[in-house]
């Protein structure tokens, strides 16, 4: 992440003026596991490090290791919750928030983190995750049911329009809940959620998409038949990469695809046994067990009206 000079200087000044020197090392260890400030500054262990030097080195390391936003989030935590039972007022926070905003990030109350300002950019890693990092994600996989028949039996312009509309609806339901579309393959898509309550957000996005489609099929669908999808939510570890082929090769992604293909009937959202226990009861109660050929424990949701 590139950070303007003014913000770097303010981050150093904050560390120097608002955080006592004896706290610098502890703070740095919060940020980088096993960090040795003496080694980083080149000062022997027996020689005290001047606070100006430690502040500069910590901020520079945060920049070099792409952890600058995490450092700033530590400042926020110092002021809001304190550290080891002591609170640390950070008078520069207001100005820092302003400058971080200029870098394209906004403060998200829900997660207590800086997130990409969606008006400026949306990247696959939320601007926070680096390629190669392994983290736990919740994946929402969707696929257009009977896609080949739709393409064969309708005008290409109508099919393109319907698919573009679906993409827009999916994007809205995913990005409004903090997720990212990782892949759009024309007849299907993969969306990922990581921050906050990721499984809940992925499930809500899948439900919202089914609701949108219910009305879309009645009001805006250019095809003469309903646009139907199979969808599934699964969660597990993934190594982040922007290479879609590499993402698809990983086990969690393969399981999400398999869940959608083998367990979700058209118009249904299936959630895996890994997702179900993480949901609040009020949401899980909307899902019914789905019978599967492979005896997987899967729950499903669909929009159903009486008399239909």
């Amino acid at each position, binding site marked *: 992440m590139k950070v303007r000079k003014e913000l770097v200087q303010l981050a150093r000044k904050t560390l120097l003026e608002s955080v006592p020197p004896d706290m610098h090392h502890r703070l740095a260890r919060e940020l980088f596991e096993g960090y040795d400030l003496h080694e980083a500054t080149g000062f022997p262990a027996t020689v005290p490090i001047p606070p100006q030097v430690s502040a500069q080195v910590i901020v520079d390391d945060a920049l070099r290791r792409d952890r600058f936003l995490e450092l700033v989030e530590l400042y926020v935590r110092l002021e809001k919750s304190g550290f080891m039972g002591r609170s640390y007022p950070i008078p520069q926070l207001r100005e820092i928030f302003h400058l971080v905003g200029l870098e394209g990030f906004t403060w998200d109350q829900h997660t207590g983190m800086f997130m990409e300002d*969606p*008006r400026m950019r*949306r990247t696959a890693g939320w601007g926070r995750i680096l390629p190669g990092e392994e983290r736990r994600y919740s994946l929402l996989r969707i696929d257009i049911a009977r896609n080949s028949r739709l393409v064969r039996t309708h005008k290409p*312009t109508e099919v*393109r*329009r319907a698919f*573009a*509309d*679906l993409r*827009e*609806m999916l*994007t*809205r339901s995913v*990005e*409004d809940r903090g997720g990212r579309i990782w892949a759009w393959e024309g007849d299907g898509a993969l969306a990922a959620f990581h921050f906050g309550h990721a499984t809940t957000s992925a499930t*809500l996005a899948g*439900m*919202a998409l089914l*609701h*949108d489609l*219910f*009305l*879309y099929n*009645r*009001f*805006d669908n*250019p095809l003469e038949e309903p646009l139907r999808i199979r969808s599934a939510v699964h969660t597990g570890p993934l190594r982040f990469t922007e290479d879609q082929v590499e993402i698809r090769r990983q086990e969690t992604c393969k399981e999400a695809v398999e869940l959608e293909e083998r367990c979700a009937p058209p118009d249904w959202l299936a959630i895996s046994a890994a997702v179900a226990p993480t949901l*609040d*009861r*009020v*949401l899980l*109660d*909307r899902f019914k067990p789905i019978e599967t050929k492979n005896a997987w424990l899967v729950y499903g949701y669909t*929009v*159903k*009206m*009486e*008399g*239909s």
Partner: protein
Amino acid sequence: MRIVVYGGYAGAADWSELLPAKVEVETMAFSSLKRSVERRAERFIYLDARGIEKEAILEAAAWLSGRPGLAWGILDPDGAVDDPAALFFAGAGDYLGPGTLPVGETRLRCALARAHRDDETPEPEQARSFPGWAKLREGKEYDFLFCHAAIGAAERLREAIGEKRLAKLRESFAAHMAEIAEGLDGKAWIMDSHGLLLVFPPRGLADSPLLAAFELLLDRALVGYEVFKLEVPLTFRFAFHAGSAPWRPPGATGTVVSEDVNFIFHLANRGGHDGRITMSAACADAIPPQIADLFQPAPAFEGHEILISRRFLD
């Protein structure tokens, strides 16, 4: 001044550098164009040409041009439209391309005025008695579309979350409904112990509050969880009726005497059902045709024919 722009993903559009700061811009999803136009009584909308295929614009143009009283234009900051004149042949009222943007407020007002200069759409018969909210005179009788909105299964909720939280939930629900009503050119009018009476201009001038109520019933699980942060299931009940009442502003409605207002409260509180829209046949024409099959006749109530919506299953 307020304009509505239909485009790609609604959250992505940023018009602050292209449209005047004074103009309030609402961005809507192109995929919901027909539903939204059906629901809202817009007089002028723009389509954002970025990300919409040419054929889709032409198809939308044909549909929009067939709607009386609605004018439309194209916002094309990237110059994606190769033949703007073709859009005028198709009925467009304005084109804002790269050579025109950023644009001033006066320019937008000119387009609006010009687009409606030949507007000979006759106002619906019923709407004549409604001059617009600003011109209503206190005590004078006007036609309205009434909607009573309430939280459903209140007894079960009281047991689950307690009286205090239920009272708070009712307040939040009333505020939420008032906001929705405002967006549809309606007003939150009278609170009662069960819910809130909303009033809208008669059909033909108002956006479709009935579709908004239907969407809330469809989205009840999401709204309960995401908007009201409830850990128990939530549903709603709605009642609709068309009739007349002497106008009093919200907060000064104690002296309103109206058979139709009495009826909507009776219908809501004694004839309504959780998870459904109950309506008198007097406002049956407020049901968008696309969802008309989801309503069915129900036994008459206090001498009025009644329609009731089918329930979404939990």
